[in-house]
């Protein structure tokens, strides 16, 4: 069965709608959301409502650091992220805020682990961006494959049975076999705020039977999304990076 892995939607309605539509037309019916539904973008209520609806229909949703900051505060965030959270908080109703507050940090399914940032102390939101951070995550779990987001740049780390670890920049739309003899950390890119110099939304498609992962890119109306961020009075950087993808 194909599962859609959506991470870092960040209140981007246009990107979320386009990605869901793309996934549905590709025959994906089950979803796992890897966190960060709000923050940065102009449509937080829409993003949370959509995820709530998917969860009611059977999807799994995990907690991201921006979601946690709605109730626990913006400590540890840079000022732009904090400003966006302060803008977001009054725009969520009580049901939406409580939904976010109750989300779990991790989800395990057989030998697969799903988490927003890292298997190593998930609540510390460590970025997996290097061999060192990847090895900390590998050591913290027995799962054969870990799927996470948080970084906004797609990367695939692999660990051989002899302890060799390397990273790989995945190419979109290519079926990558997650071979059984080694362990994997798939950093899924971001739906709502890509930062790998490609502004198209990114999500992961996982075939659980054949153990195959595909990084999918979906071009969407990022000009509208960027305009809404600007019109909302959010920091201008949050608008321009939707155009540049960086």
């Amino acid at each position, binding site marked *: 069965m194909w599962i859609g892995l959506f991470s870092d939607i960040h209140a981007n309605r246009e990107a979320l709608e386009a990605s869901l539509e793309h996934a549905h037309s590709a025959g994906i019916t089950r979803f796992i959301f890897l966190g960060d539904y709000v923050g940065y973008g102009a449509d937080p209520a829409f993003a949370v409502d959509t995820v709530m609806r998917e969860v009611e229909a059977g999807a799994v949703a995990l907690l991201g650091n921006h979601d946690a900051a709605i109730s626990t505060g913006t400590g540890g965030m840079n000022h732009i992220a904090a400003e966006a959270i302060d803008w977001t908080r009054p725009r969520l109703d009580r049901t939406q805020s409580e939904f976010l507050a109750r989300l779990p940090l991790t989800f395990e399914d057989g030998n697969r682990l799903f988490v927003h940032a890292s298997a190593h102390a998930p609540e510390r939101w460590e970025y997996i961006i290097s061999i060192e951070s990847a090895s900390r995550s590998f050591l913290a779990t027995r799962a054969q494959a870990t799927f996470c987001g948080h970084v906004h740049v797609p990367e695939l780390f692999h660990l051989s049975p002899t302890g060799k670890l390397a990273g790989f920049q995945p190419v979109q739309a*290519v079926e990558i076999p997650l071979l059984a003899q080694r362990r994997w950390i798939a950093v899924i890119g971001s739906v709502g705020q890509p930062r790998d110099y490609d502004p198209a939304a990114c999500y992961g498609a996982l075939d659980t039977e054949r153990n195959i992962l595909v990084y999918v890119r979906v071009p969407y109306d990022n000009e509208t999304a960027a305009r809404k961020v600007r019109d909302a009075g959010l920091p201008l950087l949050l608008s321009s990076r939707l155009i540049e993808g960086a």
Partner: protein
Amino acid sequence: MDRHELKGGQVIDGFRLIEPLESGGMATFWRVTRDGDDLPMLMKIPLLRPGEDPLTIVGYEVEQMILSRLSGPHVPRFVAAGDFERPYIAMEFIDGLSVKSFLDNTPLPAEAVATIGAKIAFAVHDIQCQHVTHLDLKPSNVILRGDNAVLIDFGLSRHDQLPDLVQEEADGPVGTGAYISPEQVLGDRGDPRSDLFALGVILYFLATGERPFGEPQRADNWRWRLWRDPVPPRERNPAVPPWLQEVILRCLEVDPEARYATAAQLAFDLQHPEQVPLTQRAARMRRDGVFTVAWRWLRIARNPPVRFRRAVATHLADAPIVLAAIDLEPGHEALSQALALAVRRVLATEPNARLACINVLKIARLALDKLEDAEGRNPHLGRLVGLKHWARAIPVAPERITYHVLESTDTASQLVDYARHNRVDHIVIGARASSRLRQYLGSVSAHVVAEAPCTVTVVRVADFETVTRNAGAQRA
């Protein structure tokens, strides 16, 4: 799975073992059959025992991953693979002649070397077009079957769009001492031209009976080829013609930039020996002196070359073979100029492109055409002069351009065949102004567009007279 446990008649996942074949160091091979399957098949069973080199395991994973994605006449068809409890790869059995079997009869004549070399080059080009660099090309990994070379053993190969598991596992360079390229010795597995170096070693071996860099077993000694040039083939075998030495030594250049840009371009030269531009490589009769070699060694020791990796697809896209079909009939000068402009535009963005300028001499179907015209001149020669004159306007280095006059009763089919035979990537052809007769018979360019195996650009001279007339008619 121990090789001694296997017996004829045993069935593994529906495959019946028939007879053992020659075994390699890291795997055993069996002829197998499967009910309801006519394909002749073999099963490769890796020897995965405790304490075995981890690269054996990785090689099995890599071959399974890559072979299952390759298709076409230059690779064995993938059938099935087992899991790690019962590892195997079942694939098509290739009934042909291993290039290794030619080594007993070396040196081979130049024509035979070129024929075999072109077949291997086409096979390499085919897998590279599918994002794969072989990286362990050697005579025992090439089987000749009919008109095609089939490449086997993808255990050390690299797929451009998948994680490089060999690179991850290996602590040093991986390959075969006699054939490994200088950049692989330096740890770079990302250059498609590494396969051209190995192919150069094969050509050298076939043409001279010797390996250009011997057979060093220890990886430390693989580095010698970075500064020590091989004995020129003509010194080893005076029967090697200069053009073949040129081709071989170009493949064996230490810097991949100095080799052929693609395997298709190498195959092109092997198929057109008379068009190979000769440089100092062809004239070399002995190796460089001690001083030159010492200086090279010093330079490399101080500044090991660092290079930037590019995707195989990007590399191939930069180095197309472009065919310009040129009409030399009088009265079409404007079209011929427009064609030159179009070709210049195509080449402007492709620095490694090769241009083949073609003119087709149309001959009558039944009559035996005279080779000379009424004044005793060879019409081919006149056409060649015309082609070279036309190409003056194209700014391209002499080693990247060739001229060909072909004969045919059917111009379009001849162009299409030529494009197919030489793996042409892009045809640029002019379309003469339309007339009643042409609309009825169909034009050469329309036939080429319909049947070409590649991109075709059709060039026209803007006909404002007709445009104006038609616009006027509409207004009226």
